[in-house]
């Protein structure tokens, strides 16, 4: 196991748990630790059970894990729910009024340290002390967050922190840290959704429409926060049908556009997706996956919409499906999505999920000063009379923007002639189908190479896509430490596929196991359909929780694929 520790803060919605989690995460990042945050929450505003887990260490950690080393329980339910996840030597921090169920740790007299309103800041202080975080670091973060609320609040918070530090030190409790933090090279703390938003802004996003839906809403909220400064129009539309048609209209008129949604909202967008393809209008769609069918588990994670995203929309057309594995990927892939959409004039989908959307990490600051952005439309000379859908070998015709020249731009959702008017000439129909599908060939040239982590020709090759990449790589690394030659093959683009990039690796491995977050093996089936390759096993998870290295290792052992490896 890579050297790391995990803190889990548990409580009811409305107890300020997210605030404590965010502040503690931020301070760990500022102290030089790497982090992986896993948020678990229920579809309610108050009550229920929520958790914020922070795995931290100084190594290359990027996967969520189950074992908890420090449990900060804000209520009794948190003690009961998470006691089974505690690692050997784990400590519990809980109010003295709660029953620790025999667990070692600190029974904190929160009522004596702070008023009830500031109890969560006191809890932050207790955890921060154990984690070796300087009081000034925490105080600074607390002030940044609450500073505007007035000096009384600030003073109260300072007092609560100071009391918590003094009290915790007086208990002489120690918590074993996972080595030394990294030198304090300044890293940013971002989650997948924020990274997607920043990548889109740097890629040239000018128009974003959305309808609120977990887990994608915070992408829109991040863009909205910066919309005026960055010159982006955002609109919360009346429904997802309006969302997608608005974005298509904006893109047609020249504003690079993106929509963000989840499975249910995406279902409403299916006709629009087909429209973007037919009218050859660039469109970026972010589909934040969560378990279905229907409303499913609205606040949990999954990878169930691959086939849906691949086939959504009536008729046949080219599209690209990208699937980032980390916040860094989210940034780069959002940018790539804009370039592909503009280059090939059609829909590009980004598949993320609740785990990645909400998972905060410490990331090297995105360097945005040198990065190019897309420019909508075609700036060169066009043949006259201008024909929007002029024949082109690669299927890509010069796209002028309406009103920017004296040429008229005509687009139609009906089958159309080269000049954009509807037609029922079946010869034209055949040529247009061929033209649109020719884009698939171009998209293949741009496919992101899947990443092989570990030796080629391993005994065991674990294949995965999207947000589970780090968990699978860590499981493979752990197997190698235990003597099995194992490797991970991680896809961040799942359509189109270029078998030349990966079929050799699949064939070279002794056994290939597909790891994915759904019940039916959608990616495994896609690879078989495209290449004929038969997997030698699978690990599937569909209970709404993220795929972890431990889950993979247990499943492999249970299936008899590996022996005696468990965690």
């Amino acid at each position, binding site marked *: 196991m890579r050297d790391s520790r995990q803190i889990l803060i548990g409580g009811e919605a409305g107890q300020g748990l997210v605030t404590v989690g965010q502040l503690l995460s931020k301070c760990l990042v500022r102290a030089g630790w790497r982090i992986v945050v896993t948020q678990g929450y229920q579809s309610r505003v108050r009550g229920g059970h929520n958790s914020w887990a922070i795995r931290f260490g100084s190594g290359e950690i990027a996967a969520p894990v189950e074992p908890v080393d420090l449990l900060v329980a804000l209520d009794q339910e948190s003690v009961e729910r998470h006691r089974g996840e505690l690692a050997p030597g784990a400590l519990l921090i809980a109010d003295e009024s709660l029953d620790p169920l025999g667990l070692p740790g600190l029974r904190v007299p929160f009522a004596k340290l702070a008023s009830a309103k500031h109890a969560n800041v006191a809890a932050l202080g207790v955890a921060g002390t154990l984690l070796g975080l300087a009081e000034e670091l925490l105080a600074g973060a607390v002030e940044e967050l609450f500073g505007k609320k007035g000096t009384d609040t600030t003073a109260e918070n300072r007092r609560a922190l100071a009391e918590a530090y003094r009290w915790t030190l007086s208990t002489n409790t120690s918590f074993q840290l996972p080595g030394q933090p990294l030198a304090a090279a300044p890293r*940013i703390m971002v989650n997948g959704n924020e990274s997607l938003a920043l990548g889109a*802004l740097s890629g040239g996003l000018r128009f974003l429409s959305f309808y609120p839906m977990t887990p994608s809403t915070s992408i829109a909220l991040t863009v909205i926060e910066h919309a005026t400064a960055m010159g982006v129009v955002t609109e919360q539309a009346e429904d997802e049908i309006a969302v997608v048609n608005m974005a298509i209209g904006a893109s*047609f008129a020249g504003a690079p556009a993106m929509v963000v949604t989840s499975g249910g909202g995406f279902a409403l967008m299916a006709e629009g997706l087909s429209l973007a393809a037919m009218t050859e209008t660039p469109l970026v769609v972010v589909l934040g996956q969560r378990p279905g069918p229907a409303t499913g588990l609205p606040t949990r994670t999954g990878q169930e919409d691959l086939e849906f995203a691949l086939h959504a929309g009536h008729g046949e057309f080219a599209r690209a499906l990208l699937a980032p594995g980390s916040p860094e990927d989210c940034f780069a892939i959002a940018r790539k999505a804009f370039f592909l959409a503009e280059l090939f004039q059609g829909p590009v989908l980004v598949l993320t999920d609740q785990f990645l959307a909400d998972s905060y990490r410490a990331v090297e*600051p995105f360097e*945005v000063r040198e990065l190019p952005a897309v420019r909508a439309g075609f700036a060169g000379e066009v043949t006259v009379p201008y024909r929007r859908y002029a024949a082109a070998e690669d299927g890509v015709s010069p796209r002028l923007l309406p009103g920017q020249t*004296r040429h008229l731009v*005509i687009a*139609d*959702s009906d089958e159309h002639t080269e000049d954009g008017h509807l037609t029922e000439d079946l010869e034209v129909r055949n040529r247009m189908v061929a033209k649109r599908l020719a884009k698939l060939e171009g998209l293949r040239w741009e496919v992101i190479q899947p990443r092989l982590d570990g030796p080629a020709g391993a005994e065991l090759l674990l294949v995965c896509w999207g947000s589970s990449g780090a968990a699978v790589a860590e499981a493979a690394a752990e197997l190698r430490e235990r003597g099995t030659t194992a490797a991970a093959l991680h896809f961040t683009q799942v359509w189109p596929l270029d078998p030349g990039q990966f079929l050799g690796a699949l064939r070279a491995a002794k056994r290939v196991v597909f790891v994915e977050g759904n019940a039916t093996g959608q990616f495994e089936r896609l690879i078989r359909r495209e290449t004929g390759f038969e997997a030698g096993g699978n690990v599937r998870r569909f209970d709404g929780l993220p795929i972890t290295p431990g889950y993979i290792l247990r499943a492999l052992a249970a299936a008899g694929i590996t022996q005696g490896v468990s965690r």
Partner: protein
Amino acid sequence: MTTVADYGTYETAWCPGCGNHAILGAMKEALASSGLAPHQVLFISGIGQAAKAPHYLNANLFNGLHGRALPAATGAKLANPALKVIVESGDGCTYGEGGNHFLAAVRRNIGLTVIVHDNQVYGLTKGQASPTSDEGFVTKAQPEGVHAEPFNPVETAVALKANFVARGFSGMPEHLTGLIRQALAAPGFALIDVLQPCVSFNKVNTFAWYRQRVRELPAGHDPTDWAGALAVAVRWGEEIPIGVIYRGSRPAFEERVPALAAGPLIGREVDRERLAAIVDHLK
């Protein structure tokens, strides 16, 4: 100088005698007399016989999905408010399939000129009831007659305070041309519901039926009086008022979007220094 000839003449797929022909003519007259050149105009239409209208003149055109012209037009207008964006479609497309978008677009008061060919029937799918069909209207799909209260688009648009609400009649093309010209000049959301007889599938609401009932609003009608306008808007039946029913003064949606204060979105460079500062703030 723009003339009607600039907007061209095309063969149409409409029935002879269809009310659509006169609306197309009025549209071209209004565009030319408003001094708009074809490349300054963007039509957005849906699906239906009416939605084909913009194919029969010279202008930019996005012919999208059934019911979805309004959101597409909203996006286009927000991307480039300098374009004169005109939505043209039928009653089924705009009030039926696109009903939710109609309510939302009026509420936003987005700067669109919306021309609805309202023939109270579905033509392209051959004669089913539409949202504006009168109660009791018999079709093959509604053999006992329509059981629902008809949707009154003019009443709804006035109630929700669209900036410009009018009703026209395709049997009075000169009057209609005047309405379109006024709508094109009005800021914010402008609706013209155009009574348009369908000679093939609506044997009730014929040219003669409308001609007997339409009444031009009297000179004394004050379109800026909202309550008075609403009282006119609810009228339907033996007498159907036509003309400019309501004029509001709400700011157009696009004027309220801070990001558009610096002009259209298109062609702008990403402000990389600003973005770098945003990234830096996450440390």
